[in-house]
């Protein structure tokens, strides 16, 4: 097209210098917006309607191209019992602290305005949609004894990077809160334990679960995960080694107002 274009025969540089554009720092307002969003996300992920489980395979092939819906669907449902890592799946004590990912949202725990749902979903909203396999049917039924309440999340802060960088106590937000929060946790735990003891039997334990659940929102650290665990441990309550009872019993005769500062003993 143009006569004075001179072709340059040299091979091009493998990694030519590239001026990476850098985003400007966050303004105060943006910072607030991001914090609010992250907090909202954190609360969302803490709500009973959130499903933590990710079923797509974590392997490298997820970046492969897919052609058609079938192949897309095949990506999912890859993490099953058959695909657990044998090296980490052996039960250890610290597994107790792990949240068990929910595979289905927990609708039974909260109220809905059912008139705005199509009728085919109503059973699901009641938590009666157990599908073909009703293994824990009676237990699930009993769980819905108490009145349903909408839970408000108790997560009030999502840690920002700055907060994490600063040593504890340097920021007023973390420093002031630490004792209070731990105390609060301890107290809540204490209350729930008391309730369980009052009710005594399994039945009470189950109905107390509703109170203990996220639904009423007293456990910052994912009590819903623990609830699932409780379900499992429930069966073994007659065993010699009942860690739960051991710990709960331990807490009963503690004095929280004094010992609550470190907060580490209660778990």
């Amino acid at each position, binding site marked *: 097209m143009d006569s004075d274009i001179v072709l340059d025969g040299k091979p091009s540089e493998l990694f030519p210098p590239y001026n990476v554009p850098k985003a400007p720092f966050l303004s105060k307002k943006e910072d607030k917006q991001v914090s609010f969003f992250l907090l909202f996300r954190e609360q969302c992920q803490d709500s009973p309607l959130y499903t933590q489980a990710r079923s797509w395979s974590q392997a490298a092939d997820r970046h492969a191209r897919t052609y058609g819906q079938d192949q897309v669907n095949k990506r999912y449902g890859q993490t099953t019992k058959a695909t657990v890592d044998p090296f980490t799946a052996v039960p250890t004590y610290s597994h107790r602290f792990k949240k068990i990912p929910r595979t289905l949202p927990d609708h039974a725990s909260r109220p809905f305005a059912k008139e705005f749902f199509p009728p*085919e979903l109503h059973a699901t909203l009641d938590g009666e949609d157990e599908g073909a396999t009703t293994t824990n049917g009676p237990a699930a039924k009993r769980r819905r004894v108490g009145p349903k309440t909408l839970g408000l999340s108790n997560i*009030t802060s999502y840690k920002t990077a700055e907060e994490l960088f600063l040593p504890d106590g340097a920021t007023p937000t973390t420093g002031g809160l630490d004792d209070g929060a731990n105390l609060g946790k301890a107290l809540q735990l204490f209350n729930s334990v008391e309730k369980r003891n009052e009710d005594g039997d399994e039945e009470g334990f189950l109905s107390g679960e509703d109170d203990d659940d996220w639904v009423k929102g007293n456990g910052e650290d994912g009590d819903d995960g623990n609830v699932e665990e409780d379900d499992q441990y429930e069966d073994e309550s007659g065993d010699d080694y009942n860690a739960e009872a051991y710990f709960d019993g331990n807490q009963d005769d503690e004095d929280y107002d004094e010992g609550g500062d470190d907060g580490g003993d209660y778990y």
Partner: protein
Amino acid sequence: MLVTKPVADLCALLIDELHGELPSRIFAILLTKGRSTLPQLVQYTSMTPRQLRHGLAVLQQHNLLFYHLDPGAEFAFYEANAEHAYNLSRTGKILEMIDSSFGAPAKDVMQSLLLSGQTRISDLVAAYQEKIGHANKAGEGFGDGDDFGTETNGINGDSQPAKKTGPLVKSTAQLNSIICRLVEAELIDVVHAKTFESPQDVLKTVEKEVMDKHFPGGVKGNKAKVDLQQRIAEGLRKVRGESKSLKRKLEQNGTAAKRRKLFAGVSMANGGHDEDLDPALDPRQVIRINYEKCLVDLRNRRLVQFASDMLGETTAYVYGVLLKLLTKDVPRCRDDAAMDVAADDDGDTEKGPGFVTTDQILDNLKTSVDLSLGIGKAERRQISSTAAEKIEPYPIKKKALIEQAEVDGEASADEEEDEDESSDESEYDSDYKAPATNGANGANGVNGTNGAKVKFDESAAPKERRLDRPTQLRQHLLVLTESTQRFVRHCGANEWTVDFAPLMSALREVELDSVIERSCGRQGLRLVRILRAKGKLDEKALPNVALMRKPELQQKMLEMQTLGFVHVQEVPRDLKADVKKSFFLWFCDAERSLNRLLETSYTTMAHCIQVLGALRQKERDVLETTKRSDVRGREKDTMRKEYYERYSRFLECERKLFAQVMRVDDLVAVLRDF
């Protein structure tokens, strides 16, 4: 609503982020396949019906679906509500907006509402009662110190929720009053039977009703057709109005007007003083967030920022007050074509934003704001007061030209370009403004000053120019009126209004220009402006016009063509269409560039979230640790130093990525929604 693939990807990713994988998968399928029933979804997704029912229930609860159930049919049709899904990315902004204009407790309520989706008022009240009760019990346990802490927090409406141990909302009465206020501001609306019908379904039902009722014999003739259109629009408006029933009820109650007077204009702290005045809300009502109105408020904020960039902070503040008053009754940013065609005879509540008088603005200004700032001084004889005070009762028909938009700081830097600019301006704008005022001091001056030098020096004439407050306010409003962007229209004596459509298109051009400048440099922007001024230009003529060397120019133009800012048209000289003999015409199509930009923005946002996913995958061992219930909240103490550093690095990246998403969303909002 049909969406492109980038939007569909983005929506699915957002839902995955906030609500989990199951709903996200279903939503993606609904977007790709369109309306589907449950059995169809089973086929598409190869999931079990039970999984699907659970996922659909979650989506429905969070207002992300439309559904339609034919009477007698077994299965409902589901449809994805892509708009609401996209709006999830704006959650942070909406919450921040509510936090700053209604106070922290209102933000807390809104957050709970967003979190739980559509909610019955009684459920919300019960939940808050629970929380308040818990806090009180905890407060008793802790002793006086904490009690005191919570109380003071409540009174001041302190906006640092991290600090407090008690709840932000103190009592159900306060909750009630907060909901009332949000309902009055239309930020919350009522869910009714037709809310979850998709717009097309609503249209169809209304059409059918109208046909059955008024035109049983079919529509004949032009007059009947117009009548039909009007009746349909009326029916649609009626359906739409249903969601405002709660607001109407509150207004009938009479306290609304009074309270509005108290609240308007000022950011109020807590609303604790008139809780008793609020009527108890019907506990059976189901409420949800009204994104449309949220967008109107976000648009106001964006415009204030725009004005502050262009004219100055004090003027922008005045503008903010004006916009707030003006848009109180504006329910949405863009009128719906189907509903608002025949709205002309409906009075100005539905049509147009109405107007605001100077006195109203004055009443709502904070007294602490010094209005004398940000106005230039000029001799009286240098101001043509007839031109400045000209009243324009009707919106200007002329389309907003591209040249009216001007990038800040662009003009004054380059002499040559400056001339170019102002001559361009004068071609189009001479009908209302003298040339030469614009280029140099367009950013800050009072434009009605006929080329006089504008003095900003406060001390030069301290006494004679001491104006009283209303006059100063008027000056600000006149500055806004005369700006090239036409922020305000002087529609009657002391009455002001805003023509949003041309103003927003001016803002869009500014955004486009800044993107061009960022990606192709000032040279590129200059070329684009030349093309806009000249229309289509032959490739051979362009170097002469642009005063650039040919190879450089060609390289720049190609670069811009690949980015979609300029386009080329090939016009053959004869039938043979010989390439060597053809004309190549360069031109700019702003509409096309904006659409391209929009699509790129969606992709960018989706990419940010995907990068976050990859980061999570990379750091998954660390993140798994932090999710453990004994570690969470005490990461610093329990984690090893190396792990902890990785974790904090990850958090920083996460913040940056979401900030990027929000910034790009700013652009999307301007281009698409405002």
